[in-house]
């Protein structure tokens, strides 16, 4: 980056930076402080996050994150399109785990309509969500390792991730922007071929994961760069609104899959990993353990998954089947109406939240009885998790910043919306 000028940093940001109180004292540190700009184009900020750091020597005295470099105006766009049209947009929220977002959105709209997807569709959604969790945590672990200097694990994680993407490719024809769920079901049935791929993947995954963990957990550099770095206590984590693995790394046993079960998670047997340390290492351990739990859930789903419908049969509320549209007049009309004007939901407002790989993803939808939402608010986990960043990196060294950002695992697509 070229030298930072006053024009590059807005005075109000500088003011926020300088106003922060600190209780750090340096007896013999150099007197002069420095302001360092990090991002938005920086390899370790996971996208376009910008952080302004106020430094004393190499210690961070204050930090102000600056967001909005990827603000795409989702909420405004949602008000101008029907519920169906918004499904592809949910892919691009947390773009490391699209099927999980698809599911979250469809669950929210289904809650508004008061319908429920058939059993097989629910199992398929759960499998997809857990696969998404695996890909997301793989990228999180891999890029955390890369940020602190262990490139091998990153490549291994990407290799494993490719295997999951292969199964997406067969299930819905896209590598990662899946747009797979529909309101009232899923777009297409899961072919047997894909089930074989998923089973094969899981059969060998455990071993590969052990291999990667052996490389990390016994690696002194990796452990020392993370242990005791970015500590947040359980109480403080709740105050700052952390959710997901970051909250569980601080010893709070909260997982929406357990607390307010949706879909069929209440019938599944899985553990919610919790670590008490609250540092970056604990957050990494939570993710690594969740990878194993997700595999367990997928296997159970594959066992229990019944044959049957994948789309609800409710002509005026969900899209009719394609084969019927081509042969029957009534279905054709319904399809036309739904695609063009959307389905009219009852008047009211709902909030529906699910446990995404990053934390709690919620949709707050206000309906005025029209085919499009009057207002839609996306409660994105990365945004809320990032809020704690400023406090976490205070008092650490510059090189710890990348480790802390990596362990928080934000995705700017949903943080900026």
């Amino acid at each position, binding site marked *: 980056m*070229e*030298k930072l*000028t*006053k*024009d590059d940093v807005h005075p109000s940001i500088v003011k926020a930076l300088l106003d922060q109180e600190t209780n750090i004292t340096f007896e013999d540190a150099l007197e002069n402080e420095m302001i360092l700009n990090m991002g*938005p*184009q*920086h*390899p370790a900020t996971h*996208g*376009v996050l910008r952080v302004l750091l106020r430094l004393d020597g190499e210690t961070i005295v204050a930090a102000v994150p600056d967001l*909005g*470099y*990827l*603000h*795409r*105006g989702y909420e*405004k*766009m949602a008000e101008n399109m029907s519920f169906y049209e918004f499904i*592809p*947009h949910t*892919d*691009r929220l947390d*773009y*490391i785990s699209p099927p999980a977002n698809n599911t979250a959105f469809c669950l929210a709209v289904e809650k508004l309509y008061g319908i429920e997807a058939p059993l097989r569709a629910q199992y398929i959604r759960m499998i997809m969500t857990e696969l998404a969790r695996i890909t997301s945590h793989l*990228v999180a672990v891999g890029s955390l390792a890369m940020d602190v200097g262990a490139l091998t694990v990153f*490549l291994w994680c*990407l*290799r494993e*991730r*490719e295997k999951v*993407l292969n199964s997406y490719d067969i299930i819905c024809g896209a*590598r*990662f*922007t899946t747009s797979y769920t529909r309101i009232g079901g899923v777009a297409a049935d899961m072919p047997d071929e894909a089930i074989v791929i998923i089973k094969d993947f899981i059969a060998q995954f455990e071993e590969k994961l052990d291999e990667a963990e052996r490389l990390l957990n016994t690696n002194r550099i990796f452990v020392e760069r993370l242990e005791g770095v970015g500590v947040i206590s359980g109480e403080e984590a709740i105050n700052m609104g952390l959710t997901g693995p970051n909250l569980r790394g601080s010893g709070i046993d909260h997982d929406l899959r357990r607390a307010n079960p949706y879909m069929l998670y209440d019938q599944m047997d899985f553990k919610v990993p919790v670590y008490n340390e609250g540092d970056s290492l604990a957050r990494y351990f939570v993710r690594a353990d969740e990878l194993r739990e997700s595999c367990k859930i997928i296997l159970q789903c594959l066992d229990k998954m019944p044959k049957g419908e994948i789309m609800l049969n409710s002509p005026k509320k969900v899209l009719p089947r394609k084969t019927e549209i081509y042969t029957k007049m009534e279905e054709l009309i319904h399809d036309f109406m739904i695609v063009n004007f959307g389905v009219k939901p009852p008047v009211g407002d709902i909030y529906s939240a699910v446990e995404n790989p990053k934390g709690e993803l919620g949709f707050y939808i206000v309906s005025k009885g029209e085919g499009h939402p009057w207002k839609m608010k996306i409660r994105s986990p990365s945004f809320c998790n990032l809020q704690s960043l400023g406090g976490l990196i205070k008092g650490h060294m510059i090189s710890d910043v990348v480790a802390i950002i990596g362990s928080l695992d934000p995705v*700017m*697509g949903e943080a900026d919306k």
Partner: protein
Amino acid sequence: MGLEAKLMSDGFLTTTIDALVGWARESSVWPMPMGISCCGIEMMAVAGPKYDIARFGSEVMRFTPRQCDVMLVAGTVTYKMSHVVKKIYDQMPDPKWVIAMGVCTSTGGMYRSYSVVQGIDHFLPVDIYLAGCPPRPDNLLNALMLIQDKIKNTKAREFQNIPLLEPVKVNGN
């Protein structure tokens, strides 16, 4: 009769400077990975083991613009981000090329909204528009090969009259 045999018998080759320079340039295109959003993830996949961009001599992803030849703009460019993209582009040494990866970089794509630039060609010269949301990794490799073709066929003298950048004024000091 291979190249070696020819060299053994005669000891020299004749070629044009352009061909030689073009050949050298095309096989070491270093990308500047401007991963902004979802397409950036696909760009990571290209660097990963399965698609392996190293086969094309472009595995050197450097996050400093000073060492790069081609800028891969991968992701939605918002108005706020556009200034950063432009600043990084300006810092790259000539000759330089730009790949607009994905529809929303090329045209705004599915984001018709107040904060998204409707195509980065509003402020950058673009060499390749890559369709897809996101483009598959194979497609990105294809774009890279097209860029290589373009580089190979560029004459060295075409770069002679590039106007120098305006010196940047630093306020205050």
